[in-house]
């Protein structure tokens, strides 16, 4: 059975657990570094990126998370998770995990009153996908090996690069599990190739 962890330091992690289980994989909330050893893939959820980063530092998650990604195990970052994955953050903010070759802008669509939902087409994943954006970041640029999966108003809002998947919106807040199912498939494939 494929087991996907959800980083449970702060944010909407229980919703991701539900979505993973609805997509046919097992899920566990990851609060301690040791738990990373027993999972095949990881979701870094939405929440407040500054809070999650502080707790990552406090509990020594930074290097273990980087190693997890470098071992080839897939990581999916949503909203705050996308910011944590990025190799470059617009403005003066420090880079966090720096695993995925993307440049992001925080709170890029504005404050909460500008938050919105919209139907998007996500290449190879879903058409007419109800995407919920909350004080969301967007991706300003994707590296050479990366692929843009979705845009909104000309801004990149979903991308994939090797085992890394990132989106600006919150797939866990709706009953549409297609984005999570796409990640589950990525994890299943990586598990097969890592076993070889």
């Amino acid at each position, binding site marked *: 059975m494929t087991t996907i962890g959800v980083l*449970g*330091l*702060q*944010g*909407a*992690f*229980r*919703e991701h657990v539900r979505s993973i289980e609805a997509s046919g994989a097992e899920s566990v909330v990851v*609060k301690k570094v040791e738990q990373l050893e027993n999972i095949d893939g990881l979701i870094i959820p*939405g*929440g*407040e990126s*500054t*809070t999650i980063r*502080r*707790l990552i530092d*406090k509990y020594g998650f930074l290097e273990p998370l980087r190693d997890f990604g470098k071992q080839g195990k897939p990581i999916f970052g949503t*909203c*705050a998770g996308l910011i944590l994955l990025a190799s470059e953050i617009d403005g003066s*903010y420090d880079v966090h995990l720096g695993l995925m070759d993307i440049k992001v802008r*925080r*709170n890029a669509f504005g*404050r*909460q*009153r*500008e*938050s*919105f*939902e*919209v139907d998007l087409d996500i290449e190879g994943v879903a058409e007419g996908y109800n995407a*919920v*954006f*909350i*004080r969301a970041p967007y991706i300003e640029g994707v590296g050479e090996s990366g692929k843009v999966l979705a845009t*909104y108003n000309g801004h990149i809002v979903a991308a994939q690069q090797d085992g890394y998947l990132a989106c600006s919106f*919150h797939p866990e*807040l*709706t009953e549409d599990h297609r984005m999570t199912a796409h990640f589950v498939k990525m994890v299943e494939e990586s598990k097969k190739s890592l076993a070889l």
Partner: protein
Amino acid sequence: MSQTGTDRVKRGMAEMQKGGVIMDVVNAEQAKIAEEAGAVAVMALERVPADIRAAGGVARMADPSIVEDVMNAVSIPVMAKARIGHITEARVLEALGVDYIDESEVLTPADEVYHIKKDDYTVPFVCGCRNLGEATRRIREGASMLRTKGEPGTGNIVEAVSHMRQVQSQIRHLRGLSEDEVMVYAKDNGAPFDLLMEIREAGRLPVVNFAAGGIATPSDAALMMQLGADGVFVGSGIFKSNDPERFARAIVEATTHYDDYKLIGELSRGLGTAMKGMEMSTLAADQRMQDRSQ
């Protein structure tokens, strides 16, 4: 077509705050301390509840310049309080661009009968509740997030505990009721029937419910999480302690790891003096902020 201000967007914003601590601040400097300590949001105020209590008189929305200073100082969401029923204060805060409005009994109510019709706004609202009747009335008025009322500015957790337990216990009770019994329960509690049916089905509220009103220590925060709170608001507890930075960090960690008692013990060791606090029986009836709304 994109849509702003939908239930999903407003309630979703509160979902992102789960497992976090929202701290009261009165200036940019405190806001930065809160952000640095790992707060998920700050509540910009003119005075913390303990000082509002001490000052007496009419407590109103904060000066917009304080709210703006705080918004400019941090990248985390900024909340602000409007008086209960004060439509204009709420509209002003919305126009300022605050991320969440607390229609709060900590301020002197502007309307003793009606709350703001919150679903007319693009900005989401949080409201206090002591029981399922208050919780469901606020949700139906458009609140996207709830919190216990507790008794603000007292540093005494007893009322927040009582309110959290009351709501949880009523949800458990509701789950065992038949549909005809729910109708009578709705009448007795002044609760919208259809919303009760929805909660009965789901086994939980349709919005997050944070703890607030009296949290003063890391153990208080962890206790509220243990009792089922989705996160905590800390008002006077941080900046009325003798070491706000340490208190703030310790409360954030205790909220994340609320069932790691060894860690909470460590966090509490030599932490210094918490805010002084008040015993409930010393509070005159007209000093009880939680009784300001139904």
